[in-house]
């Protein structure tokens, strides 16, 4: 039952082959029995899940069910859930039970989806390996001595281990696409402003974007149909109709122009990863697409620009965690200053503190123009690269990350090596463009991700291209050893 896609589960629910309660029980049992090995779920919401499943079954029986009615999903622990602890992977919020739902969570509830629980993640979404979580690292189901990627590593690992058919995630510099690639699943970061950020704990507000993860592009389309909405409560959300992302999945790719940026195939790319990506591009040619060589000359500047902008915005966003209104508070503060400083030193992990300090440095008097101002200008250069490319091509494709999943601790002592893990994903966040990753091969028994970058609001075309690829390949159907049955 856990090998069914969301599309197949919906079909089975509608035909009454099984009930939502049955599949919810099944996935809850899998999480309870198997997740001790992967650590992908922080909080299991068993009682709530069974209650929503029963309600979903009633709606299904009445014939008044919405698209995702009765489908069990996991939510990244960055989305506020009313009455359910929302930790953001941090000690700071270990005791935080939000009094309201994020808009994304509300959309899922209104759609009848069943929340199984909340997934593990890098603390405050700062990381590419899931090693910074207060709740311990998530293990990659393909190779438990390797990282699942991050920051949405819990969501990605849970889907790969068939603990849930789909999950929510967020992406600030690659946090949906990189773990999706490393865990062999499909994930999509939408255009900035497509999915509401209200109730999604902020890391870098001008880059953060929520999106879906599932095993297939077809399932991601279903989840995005539910997640994307205009929201008055998020002033950066774009007021634009949400298309049905499922309707064009079957379109032919004949004549589709795919840009191949030479900068994404240069030094630092693992040979096996490159081969898998090149083979996939050949597959696209067979499907009728045309490959066009392009250049994104400012790609190299994206990592330095990101590591100014993201920490700067994080240092401002995380100033709200002060031990006064919610979250962790230190014992016996001797004065207000001591309350702030000890609460924050105890509540935040090392990487978060490091980024706060870098951000504070970049924003401090005398440095603002040289760092934040300059980085914002470099963002224009990066956007111009894409604008020029999209005059010649419909989509851009390349690797999602430079190599398959690395071992725990491999990049622990060198923050810059870890940051370079996101070299191919960061520029789309800086430009606000949508990007996705889908499985396209295996190297050393570990999955490789193909990245698709689209023009603004062109998610339907990306999903169409990914779906067509998944009709002629079976990389997305592979399961880690021991997980199949």
């Amino acid at each position: 039952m856990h090998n069914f896609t969301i599309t197949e589960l919906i079909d089975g629910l509608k035909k009454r082959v099984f009930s939502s309660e049955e599949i919810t029980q099944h996935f809850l049992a899998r999480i309870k029995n198997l997740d001790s090995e992967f650590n992908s779920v922080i909080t299991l919401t068993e009682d709530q899940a069974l209650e929503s499943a029963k309600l979903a079954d009633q709606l299904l029986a009445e014939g008044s069910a919405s698209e995702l009615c009765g489908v069990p999903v996991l939510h990244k622990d960055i989305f506020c859930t009313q009455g359910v602890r929302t930790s953001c992977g941090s000690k700071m919020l270990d005791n935080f039970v939000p009094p309201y739902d994020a808009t994304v969570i509300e959309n899922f509830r209104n759609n009848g989806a069943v929340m199984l629980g909340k997934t593990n993640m890098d603390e405050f979404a700062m990381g590419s390996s899931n090693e910074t979580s207060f709740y311990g690292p998530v293990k990659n189901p393909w190779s438990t001595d390797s990282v699942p990627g991050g920051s949405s590593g819990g969501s990605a690992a849970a889907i790969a281990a068939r603990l849930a058919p789909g999950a929510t995630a967020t992406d600030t510099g690659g946090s949906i696409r990189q773990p999706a690639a490393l865990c062999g699943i499909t994930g999509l970061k939408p255009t900035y402003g497509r999915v509401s950020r209200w109730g999604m704990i902020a890391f870098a507000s001008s880059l953060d974007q929520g999106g879906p993860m599932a095993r297939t592009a077809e399932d991601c389309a279903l989840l995005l149909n539910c997640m994307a909405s205009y929201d008055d409560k998020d002033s950066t959300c774009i007021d634009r109709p949400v298309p049905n992302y499922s309707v064009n999945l079957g379109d032919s790719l004949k004549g589709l122009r795919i840009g191949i940026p030479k900068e994404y195939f240069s030094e630092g790319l693992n040979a096996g990863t490159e081969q898998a990506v090149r083979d996939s591009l050949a597959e696209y040619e067979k499907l009728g697409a045309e490959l066009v060589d392009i250049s994104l000359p400012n790609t190299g500047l994206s990592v330095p620009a990101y590591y100014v902008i993201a920490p700067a915005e994080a240092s401002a966003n995380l100033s709200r965690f002060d031990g006064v209104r919610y979250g962790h508070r230190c014992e016996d503060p001797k004065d207000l200053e001591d309350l702030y400083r000890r609460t924050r030193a105890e509540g935040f992990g090392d990487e978060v503190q490091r980024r706060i300090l870098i951000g504070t440095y970049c924003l401090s008097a005398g440095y603002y123009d040289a760092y934040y101002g300059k980085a914002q200008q470099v963002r224009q250069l990066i956007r111009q690269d894409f604008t020029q490319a999209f005059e010649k091509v419909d989509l851009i494709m390349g690797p999602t990350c430079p190599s398959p999943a690395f071992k725990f601790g491999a990049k622990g002592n060198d923050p810059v090596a870890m940051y370079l893990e996101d070299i191919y994903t960061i520029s789309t966040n800086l430009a606000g463009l949508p990007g996705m990753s889908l499985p396209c091969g295996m190297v050393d028994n570990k999955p490789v991700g193909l990245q698709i970058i689209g023009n603004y609001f062109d998610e339907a075309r990306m999903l169409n291209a990914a779906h067509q690829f998944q009709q002629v390949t079976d990389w997305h159907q592979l399961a880690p050893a021991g997980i199949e049955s």
Partner: protein
Amino acid sequence: MSIEKQTIENLATLARLAVDDERVEEISQRLGSVLELVDQLQAADTSGLSGLDHPLNETQRLREDKINKPNMREAFQAIAPDTEDDLYLVPKVID
């Protein structure tokens, strides 16, 4: 590149973080390597370019100045570390 102890202490004060002496060396080195990375930006020619504040060049949307959310004070204060008479309590600030 490493950063002076004084600078780290100043940043820690601005960021309201308690930093123990034994952590200063490690933080200094790690911040130094990140700042080396971001210094690559200085070589980029950005003359005549404005900063990109919103990826789609959207301007901040304004709403009508009227109450549009329910009052959730009780719910918010229920999760606070310490409150009294609808107020959040902190250590005494004024003698």
